[in-house]
């Protein structure tokens, strides 16, 4: 049971207020804030980070029973027996996320000072970034589902604004719209889950819902779990709603790092972990989470192998890594903490990778096609080294972050009973191999081999002049690289993170009995990774890379290049029938519904036009009709009287 927040935590609303204030000042202030807007933007986040750190340290000093704190701010939507409070829940899980969001987010803010220095609207960009951080903090700090939903959609809004940053490009505008729409599909799922919880429990606050969750029927629990998963799929780019995430790379690269690597897309994992009292009670719901995670991780890996666009490869790598996290949290008490651990270490190395990619793009005049890169190691050593560390971390090189966090997930997957252990475990290992392949391919094509750009011209017809980025950009990359080295080991060894999170997620359950011993698994994992790296070296390292994408190619590559037909499927199943339906409805409304109204009017109009013709103007014909009428009347009277 949460205790009321006191002491330093009583002002935790500052965490939200600081970035929200930053966004408001920058948006309302307009051009007046151009000079110092970016500094204010960074300052609010750094201050929030500092405060978050203080809260975190404060919390570690508390007895375990008091680490889950509740801060009631005000009554938001009180109607009848529905009492939606606006409040914050400060517990190890939310504080961990606060540190991730403000920490990595702060670094990305600082990086953006350099990256966006040529943009006229830089302060607006920082306003949006602040808005994003505020929404994300609200999402993780919320103490009820409705408040979470507020942050949830706020994040969607901020991502819409940031993806569509270059809004005069139709592709960016379309990508932003697509992201928002697919998120909204997931949001509807989350909303309906809230309705179901309210219907049965008459509350939407976490504490009450979780305490009463066991009173729900199994069918209801499964329904809620599936709807929450739908929300998570939308926000986290999981199958079948994964198509928006790669398109979202239309935004500036810091946006990709902030939203689509470190924070926003992890919201789905957070939601499942946060709702663990519900998932604990429904094995079917958990199984579905695991299956979705497994499918997504494979889809992401396969497509990632085929792309030549550096940001899209990283985007699909995000899709697949989040698949790992979903897989982990779907395993239940065995995996919640592992999923969060991978999420955190992924936050470091993926942000580092994206910032590195941004640095490369900055150097290469916003070029993203890796076939035009090559041999950049010498020109941009800091970027290359930090990127390389992130790369080693993501493929699971022994000793780095990914090795520990991903390895733990693979162990836990194999520990599942029966066919599940084999299916999920093998999928996770295959995914690791594919990850090694496409990441190695990316690194080789970008930093090693021939400097293919020397023979090419950029969009404006000039030569490329790659150069190392300014310190304001490289320093965040260095810090993130350090994080990608050490974070994993720190979290996993001795179950440090799991123990810290236990007040929020329950104690870490021991991994089930695995058919393969721990050592065998580690060796298997490493061998598969090595094979992936080797394959990549053979494919792109040993042969010259053609600057133009080779065509035609075998069908697996074609399918992967077409996003495994995900977009085509959306197009055929939803977009095109929707357009037809829309046109049909517009036609029906104009010709059918309105046609009936106008038809009625025309009927009256036409009818009276005909009847008018009886008025001939001849007095004698009027007289005749009067006489006829009189005779008829008299006849009728007589008939009534004498019949």
């Amino acid at each position, binding site marked *: 049971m949460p205790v009321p927040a006191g002491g330093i935590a009583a002002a935790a609303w500052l965490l939200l207020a600081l970035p929200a204030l930053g966004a408001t000042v920058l948006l309302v202030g307009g051009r007046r804030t151009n000079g110092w807007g970016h500094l204010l933007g960074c300052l609010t986040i750094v201050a929030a980070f500092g405060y978050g750190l203080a809260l975190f340290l404060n919390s570690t000093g508390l007895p375990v029973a008091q680490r889950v704190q509740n801060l009631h701010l005000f009554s938001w939507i009180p109607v009848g027996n529905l009492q939606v409070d606006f409040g914050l829940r400060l517990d190890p899980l939310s504080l961990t996320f606060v540190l991730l969001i403000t920490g990595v987010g702060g670094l990305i803010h600082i990086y953006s000072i350099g990256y966006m220095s040529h943009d006229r609207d830089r302060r607006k960009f920082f306003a949006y970034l602040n808005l994003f951080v505020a929404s994300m903090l609200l999402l993780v700090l919320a103490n009820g589902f409705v408040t979470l939903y507020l942050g949830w959609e706020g994040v969607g809004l901020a991502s819409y604004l940031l993806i569509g940053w270059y809004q005069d490009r139709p592709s960016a505008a379309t990508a932003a719209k697509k992201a928002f729409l697919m998120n909204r599909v997931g949001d509807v799922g989350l909303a309906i889950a809230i309705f179901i919880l309210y219907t049965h429990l008459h509350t939407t606050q976490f504490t009450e819902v979780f305490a009463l969750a066991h009173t729900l029927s199994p069918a209801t629990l499964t329904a809620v779990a599936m709807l929450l998963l739908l929300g998570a799929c939308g926000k986290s780019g999981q199958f079948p709603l994964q198509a928006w995430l790669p398109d979202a790379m239309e935004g500036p690269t810091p946006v990709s790092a902030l939203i689509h690597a470190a924070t926003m897309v992890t919201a789905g994992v957070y939601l499942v972990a946060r709702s663990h009292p519900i998932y604990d009670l429904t094995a079917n719901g958990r199984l579905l989470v695991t299956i979705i995670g497994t499918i997504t991780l494979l889809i992401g890996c396969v497509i990632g192998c085929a792309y030549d666009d550096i940001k899209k490869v990283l985007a699909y790598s995000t899709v697949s890594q989040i698949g790992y996290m979903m897989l982990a949290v779907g395993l239940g008490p065995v995996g919640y903490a592992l999923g969060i651990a991978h999420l955190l270490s992924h936050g470091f190395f993926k942000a580092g990778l994206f910032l590195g990619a941004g640095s490369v793009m900055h150097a290469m005049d916003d070029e993203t096609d890796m076939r035009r890169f090559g041999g950049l190691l010498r020109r941009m050593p800091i970027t290359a080294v930090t990127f390389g560390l992130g790369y080693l971390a993501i493929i699971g090189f022994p000793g780095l972050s990914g090795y520990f966090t991903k390895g733990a997930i693979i162990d836990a997957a194999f520990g599942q009973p029966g066919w599940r252990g084999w299916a999920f475990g093998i999928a996770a290992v295959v995914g690791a191999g594919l990850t090694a392949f496409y990441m190695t391919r990316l690194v080789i094509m970008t930093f090693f081999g021939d400097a293919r750009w020397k023979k090419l011209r950029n969009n404006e017809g000039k030569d490329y002049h790659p150069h190392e980025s300014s310190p304001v950009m490289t320093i965040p990359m260095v810090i993130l690289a350090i994080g990608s080295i050490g974070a994993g080991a720190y979290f996993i060894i001795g179950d440090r993170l799991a123990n810290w999170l236990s007040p929020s997620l329950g104690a870490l359950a021991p991994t089930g009995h695995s058919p393969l011993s721990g050592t065998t698994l580690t060796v298997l994992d490493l061998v598969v990774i090595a094979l992936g790296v080797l394959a990549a070296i053979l494919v792109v390292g040993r042969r010259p890379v053609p600057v133009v994408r080779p065509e035609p190619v075998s069908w697996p590559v074609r399918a992967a290049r077409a996003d495994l037909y995900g977009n085509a499927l959306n197009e055929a199943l939803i977009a095109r029938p929707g357009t037809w339906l829309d046109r049909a409805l517009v036609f029906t409304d104009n010709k059918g519904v309105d046609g009936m109204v106008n038809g009625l009017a025309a009927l009256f109009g036409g009818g009276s036009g005909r009847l008018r013709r009886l*008025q001939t*103007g001849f007095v*004698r014909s009027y007289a005749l009709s009067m006489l006829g009428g009189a005779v008829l009347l008299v006849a009728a009277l007589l008939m009534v009287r004498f019949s």
Partner: protein
Amino acid sequence: MTPTYYLLLSALLFTLGAVGVLVRRNAIVVFMCVELMLNAVNLTLVTFARINGSLSGQVMAFFVMVVAAAEVVIGLAIIMAIFRTRRSSSVDDSNLLKY
């Protein structure tokens, strides 16, 4: 003499008037026929007053006469005005007031 004859006479007069209104074109003649119909009705009213021994029928007849007198004034004035502008007293020639 039974009152029925008076009623038959009035019916005859009314029919004559009605047929006249319907078949004649000259406005004056039509007008006269209308007067004929009115007076036929008057005759009926008076007859019924006599039959029923009540005065109200006769009073009604006086009303009709007064109205008819007023009508004659206005009607003739209209016919005169139309004749002056159109040089015709045929009712079929003035049919402007139509659809």
